[in-house]
């Protein structure tokens, strides 16, 4: 048991830190974050390009594909440092963390040559078309159809909760290619050009009023057969690969994001008063702050422990379900606590730029997105503890 970073890990972190110190752009003004504006998009693309030019795109990819072959721990250091430096969000994240690794794993050589370079350079932005309105947690019950017609598939259907779809160039799409087979066995994975005729995108507004997700409609969209990723009707296996990658390294950046928010709360609590008493001196607030610190630290430690295992075994394990539960429930409790501590004025959009309202509402989705808490608990019960299936 040695929880210090290794020398190599320290060097990786230090060189990244100094690069970031020089290259992170001015933050985009917080009250002007219209997710759909072209200026904002260009700002994000420019950052992706900068990362690429600096050699910091796709750090976890094997060097033969232009990456750095970073270990899981290094990858997580990367994400944590990026978050800590206040760098813009990564517009290439779907490509870098999901699509690229999947193409590397199951794509053919042509697909690798054609798609991988653009992902790293930021020229080609990806989105991921898995979720459907009627599928929900039961992803494999998807009904978007692809029917073979000559050298093309013809795709019809609808995807939802698709990040970046409004401006993405390509989409990693799951479609049903065999309606007779059991639901996991008739799914194929396609790489779809978002500029194809018949693709349309409309923003999906969240309860917070923000968009950030989209609905994507496919109406007789032609997809050339060579854009099939992996084998026909074996797309569920590809999806599993993607879903396994989805959260593996995410923890460290989620942690940093929450930590910055907790620090902001602590700063406010030290500054603000109620009825003349400093919020920081109120024993109830102190208990709530301490509980938030405790839970966040528990998340950090659980994440580190999981990373340390991943670093040895290279296979994301069932710890992910624990991390998902810890993170999502912490996010909600933390937002609730923050609102309780800050009191009435926290309702106003002009209080701390609306951060706490946004956090409160946005976190409501955290126990649903990416596998509901109920699904996570089922996974732990059945796969980790070996209990009989409940349904």
């Amino acid at each position: 048991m040695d929880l210090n970073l290794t020398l190599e890990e320290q060097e990786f972190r230090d060189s990244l830190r100094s690069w970031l110190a020089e290259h992170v752009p001015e933050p985009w003004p917080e009250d002007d974050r219209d997710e759909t504006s072209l200026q904002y998009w260009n700002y994000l693309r420019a950052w992706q390009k900068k990362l690429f030019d600096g050699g910091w795109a796709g750090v976890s990819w094997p060097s033969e594909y232009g990456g750095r072959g970073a270990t899981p721990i290094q990858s997580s250091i990367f994400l944590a440092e990026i978050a800590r430096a206040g760098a813009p969000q990564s517009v290439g994240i779907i490509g870098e963390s999901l699509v690229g690794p999947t193409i590397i794993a199951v794509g053919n050589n042509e697909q690798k040559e054609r798609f991988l370079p653009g992902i790293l350079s930021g020229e080609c932005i990806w989105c991921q078309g898995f979720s459907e309105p009627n599928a929900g947690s039961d992803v494999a019950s998807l009904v978007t159809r692809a029917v073979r017609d000559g050298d093309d598939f013809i795709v019809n259907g609808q995807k939802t909760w698709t990040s970046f779809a409004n401006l993405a160039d390509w989409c990693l799409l799951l479609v049903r290619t065999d309606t007779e087979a059991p639901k996991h066995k008739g799914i194929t994975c396609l790489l779809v050009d978002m500029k194809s005729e018949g693709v349309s995108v409309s923003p999906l507004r969240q309860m917070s009023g923000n968009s950030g997700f989209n609905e994507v409609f496919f109406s007789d969209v032609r997809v050339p057969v060579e854009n099939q990723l992996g084998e026909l009707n074996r797309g569920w296996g590809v999806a599993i690969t993607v879903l396994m990658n989805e959260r593996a390294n995410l923890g460290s950046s989620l942690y940093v994001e929450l930590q910055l928010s907790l620090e902001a709360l602590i700063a406010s609590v030290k500054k603000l008063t109620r009825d003349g008493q400093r919020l920081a001196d109120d024993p109830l607030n102190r208990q709530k702050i301490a509980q938030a610190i405790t839970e966040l630290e528990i998340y950090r430690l659980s994440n580190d422990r999981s990373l340390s295992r991943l670093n040895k075994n290279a296979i994301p394990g069932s710890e992910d379900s624990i991390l998902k539960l810890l993170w999502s429930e912490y996010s909600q409790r933390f937002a609730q606590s923050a609102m309780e501590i800050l009191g009435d004025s926290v309702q106003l959009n002009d209080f701390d730029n609306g951060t706490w309202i946004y956090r409160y509402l946005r976190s409501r989705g955290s126990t649903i997105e990416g596998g509901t808490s109920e699904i996570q608990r089922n996974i732990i019960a059945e796969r980790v503890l070996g209990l009989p299936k409940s349904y």
Partner: protein
Amino acid sequence: MDYDLSKPQKLLQESVRTFCKRKCSPERVRELMATDTAFDEELWSEIADQGWIGPHLPEAYEGLELSLVELAIIAEEFGRVCMPGPFIAANWAATLIAESGNAELAEKYLPSIIEGELKATVALLEQGSSWAGEPQLTVTRDGNNYKLSGIKELVLDAAIADLIIVVARDGDDTCLMMVKATDSGVEITPTPSIDATRKLCRISFDAVTVPSEQVLATGESADKALRKSLQIGAIAVSAELVGIMQWTLDATVEYVKTRKQFDQPVGSFQAVQHQCAEMYLLTESSRAAAYYAAWASSENEPDAARSISIAKTWCSDSARKLGNHAVQCHGGIGFTWEHDLQFYYKRSKANEFLFGDPTFHREQIAEMALCTT
């Protein structure tokens, strides 16, 4: 001991429910949310015509002189449709005027407030103050007049108000000053907030002149009237939360019966069932608490004050928990702007604060039980 509503109470409930269904559809709520004021003049005047503004106030001032149970019935039904507009503000202002014992000003203003012609609100909170806190906004004397200077926050529906009752400080005394929105030096700024169906404003008072005849009350009688009006406000908000919970429960149960996952209705999964059961428990127990508080206050029961703090605490906490379960049981769809859950969810959150949050009221309860001061 009979918990059932009386016949006339049931009739009232029925008529409010029918009215709300007809006049305040979710589409209408969305339209009003998108405005700066969430105010529908016509709807408001129809509500007034029914006598539902300040229904507990004396007939002498055009009130119906009903009990607070009837106020709770109206508030619950309004909650069920997430009624936009100044119902809570108007009730608060009207109650405060009625409780102040100032017959002259009551005669002058109350009837037109109750009849919906004059829009009134109360300005209490300030930056760094609480619902118990003593306001810092100060009054200075200027001959026979007073001058008000300072800033009030989180004032309900002030953007459409004609009349603002300002809770101010004159030395050690609380004063309730009646200010017109059009008075010189009054600046009202809408401050958008989490609940777009009920608008909050910031009001700055820059040496606003208040003639002494516009002083509603001072000193002990001001404190007493304010306290009573806050209590009745808390009852109304608690009952509104019950209505919100009932709508949310109904919507959730209906959804989970039909929505399928893994080839079964999600309502057949125990994890979903148990959340729905919890929602039912929270709704029913909150209803018991809100109506008991209304009844006990009307009857001046010795535990009236405690029952109000208990109702506000329990209904606030319950509505928040219930809302969270509701979104969870809905899954992604419940998290979208398109689903009506969103405005009920946000109104619940705003109501959690209004007239004192659970922490505040628990401290009141503890003080009553422990008699430490």
